[in-house]
C-alpha cells in the first residue's frame, strides 16, 4: 500500500479509537458534560479525569514522538504555528464555551452521537457546520 493510502487508513482507525475514547469517557452524554460545567449544582468531576488522562498520555507521547525527524508515514510533522493571543482567540473560545454550556456537546462527541440517529446530535452538528460557514464568511470580510 502506498503511504497516502496508509495515512487515510490510519485516519479512519484513529477516528474510531478517538470516538471509542469519547464513548468510554462519558463525553457523549450531554447531561454528564453539563454536570461538569454545573459548579453550583451537583458537580460531576469525571471530565477532569478524562482531560487529565488524555493530557498526561499525549504530553509524554508528544515529547517522545517529536524526537524523531519525521512521522512514520509522512515527510514532516504539521504542527500548529499560530501563537497570537488576541481577541479572535479569546472571543472565539468564549463563544464556543457558551455553545458547549448551552447544548452539552463539543464537536467530537456530537459527531459520534450522530450514529444514534437522534435529532439532538443531528441538529447540533448541522448548526455547528452552519456556524463555521458563517464565521468563515465573516473572516473573509474582516
Amino acid at each position: 500500500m502506498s503511504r497516502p493510502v496508509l495515512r487515510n487508513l490510519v485516519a479512519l482507525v484513529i477516528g474510531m479509537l478517538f470516538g471509542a475514547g469519547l464513548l468510554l469517557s462519558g463525553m457523549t452524554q450531554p447531561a454528564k458534560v453539563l454536570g461538569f460545567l454545573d459548579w453550583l449544582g451537583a458537580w460531576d468531576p469525571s471530565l477532569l479525569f478524562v482531560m487529565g488522562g488524555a493530557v498526561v498520555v499525549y504530553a509524554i507521547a508528544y515529547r517522545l514522538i517529536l524526537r524523531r525527524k519525521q512521522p512514520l508515514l509522512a515527510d514532516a510533522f504539521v504542527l500548529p504555528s499560530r501563537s497570537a493571543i488576541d481577541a479572535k482567540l479569546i472571543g472565539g473560545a468564549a463563544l464556543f464555551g457558551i455553545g458547549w454550556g448551552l447544548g452539552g456537546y463539543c464537536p467530537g462527541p456530537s459527531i459520534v452521537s450522530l450514529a444514534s440517529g437522534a435529532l439532538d446530535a443531528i441538529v447540533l452538528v448541522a448548526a455547528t457546520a452552519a456556524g463555521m460557514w458563517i464565521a468563515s464568511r465573516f473572516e473573509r470580510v474582516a
Partner: protein
Amino acid sequence: MEVGALWAPLAGGALIGSSAALLLWLNGRVVGISGMLGGMLAPVRGDVSWRALALLGLVLAGVIGMLVAPEQIGRSPRSLPVLALAGLFVGIGTRLSNGCTSGHGVCGVSRLSPRSLVATATFIATGVLTVLALRVLGAGS
C-alpha cells in the same frame, strides 16, 4: 461519586490521548475535530480525504457504540431550538479560535501552548457561566 466510577473517564481519556499520539506518530498530524469538520466546508488540497475518513471513523465508533453500549450515547436535556443555537455558537467559536476541546483542550494543553491554555480556560469559564445563567433563569438541566 464512587472512586470506581472514575476508571472509565480516566481510561477513556487515556484512549483519547493515545489515539491523538498515534496520529502524530504515524501521520504527523494534530487531532482537531473542529478543524476536521471545518476542513469539509473549506477544503484544503491534500487534507480532505484523511479528515473525512477520521470523521467517518468517529461516526463508526458511534455505530459500534450503539450496538454494544447504547446507553453511552445520551440525549441532551435541552430543547432542539436551544441545541441549534448551541451548535451555531460552537461552530462560530471554534472557527474563530481555531480549535475545540480536542485541539486546544487536549493537544494544545499537553504542549503547554499559551494560546491553547488561554482558549481552554476561556471556554471552560464561559461554559460554566452559561450553565450557571441557565440555572438562574430557571431553565437549567
